[in-house]
């Protein structure tokens, strides 16, 4: 990077960001409050290392994870990115098959 010169403001900001002394310490979000707290059940393992405390069945938890941007890697984020994902499915337990995956190429 030292041989490259930033030409505009954005590039200057990127240069600043990659400077080690400018990078802020990463602090573990131990007390998360409200979104993906560490003892929340996830989609793979519960806080006890098992499956019994995951939300059950999966379809009862779909909108709870989507609407509040709770697990945006596992289900579409309907708050920001994919607001229409569940548009025609009011009850996920009955019509979860209609809730399709998201494909970036639109296919």
């Amino acid at each position: 990077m030292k041989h490259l010169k930033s030409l505009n403001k954005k590039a200057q900001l990127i240069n600043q960001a990659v400077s080690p002394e400018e990078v802020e310490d990463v602090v573990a979000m131990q007390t998360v409050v409200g979104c993906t707290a560490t003892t929340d059940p996830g989609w793979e393992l519960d806080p006890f290392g098992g499956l019994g405390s995951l939300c059950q069945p999966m379809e009862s938890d779909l909108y709870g994870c989507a609407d509040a941007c709770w697990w945006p890697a596992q289900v579409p984020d309907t708050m920001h990115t994919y607001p229409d994902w569940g548009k025609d499915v009011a009850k996920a337990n009955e019509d979860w098959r209609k809730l399709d995956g998201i494909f970036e190429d639109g296919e």
Partner: protein
Amino acid sequence: MKLKNVLKSAGVLGAVGLGSLASQAMADQEFLLTITRPNQLHVIDMSSNTIARTCDIPGPFGTGSIALSPDNTHAYVLSNGTKDVYGFDIRNCDITFKAEQSSPTEQVISMQSIAVSADGKELYTVQNPIKKLSDRFEVEQPRLAVFNIKDGMDAKVVRTFPVDRRITKIAVTDENEVILGGADLKGINPKTGEVRMVSKLASWEKGPLWLPPDAFAMHSQGEQMHEYIMPYVTAKFDSEDWNFETAEWWWGISRVDLKTGKATRDEVLPFQFIIFNFVADPRNPDILYGSFNTLSKHDISKKETLIVHDMPHTYYDLNISGDGKTLYVGGTSSDISIHDSDTLEKIGSIQLTGDMSTSDLRVATIRN
């Protein structure tokens, strides 16, 4: 209770005098409020456990957060991905209030945070703004936003004050302090913006043997006790080696009395299973009920779990009737499960037209 039902009850009982009939007709009416997809506010008559009316909320679903006016006749809800606020007269579904929080250059999200002032004149949200610039988004300082409810359908922010990040559920005390559920529990004066610590969590000082608390404030349905409960999980280690296998794991609660603004914080139960939300029994503040994959009953004065009842699916939240006899368990799917609070046995169900997702279950008590 509707007059028709009162008369029906009087007929069954036979010997109901005019005096007691009048007192029944004047009795408080309890309504359970929740929101379902695609975006409807349901007003459920808790005397018959039937849907009294369903109000269409404009815009897409918005996580289902509900705040009540002090007289409980109006409900304020977050809609459109929590960007907008609508107010309803729950007696007839009339829309009485609207505030669009976002603008073309700034996106504002309010993660569950909505409350009404003690005098019913102001509405509060915590706004998480993002400035939308032509080449990037800039995250801005979260703020408490104040609206005048009398501004009606074109309400604009009248005051703002900076607040912490990560604030979700908020509530108002009788002295009109806004309780902010965040990494720590704080209170803000919505006239001056002055902030005080109500109950430390992330910054608690319990020493090196305690795991920093992992707290949760997605819901707080304490209207029957007029309180705010924020559950958290922590662990007490037997040494500074922090052996998770031998640690004592605990549920704790930060609990604010909304009458006085005074808070307590304590570890109340062994952490044995997941509970998303607690609600207290109006007859005994030491008796808590919790919901998730189980419905459970606890006596926190003895730090004991009394009953655990398996549920057919996950339910995020719950509420309780004013007499403490009936539990309503909801959230997630499209049914509210009704249970006897003594035994936790299921005694009924209310089928809704869509999923509740993360919606609140609020009890509105309209006093005659």
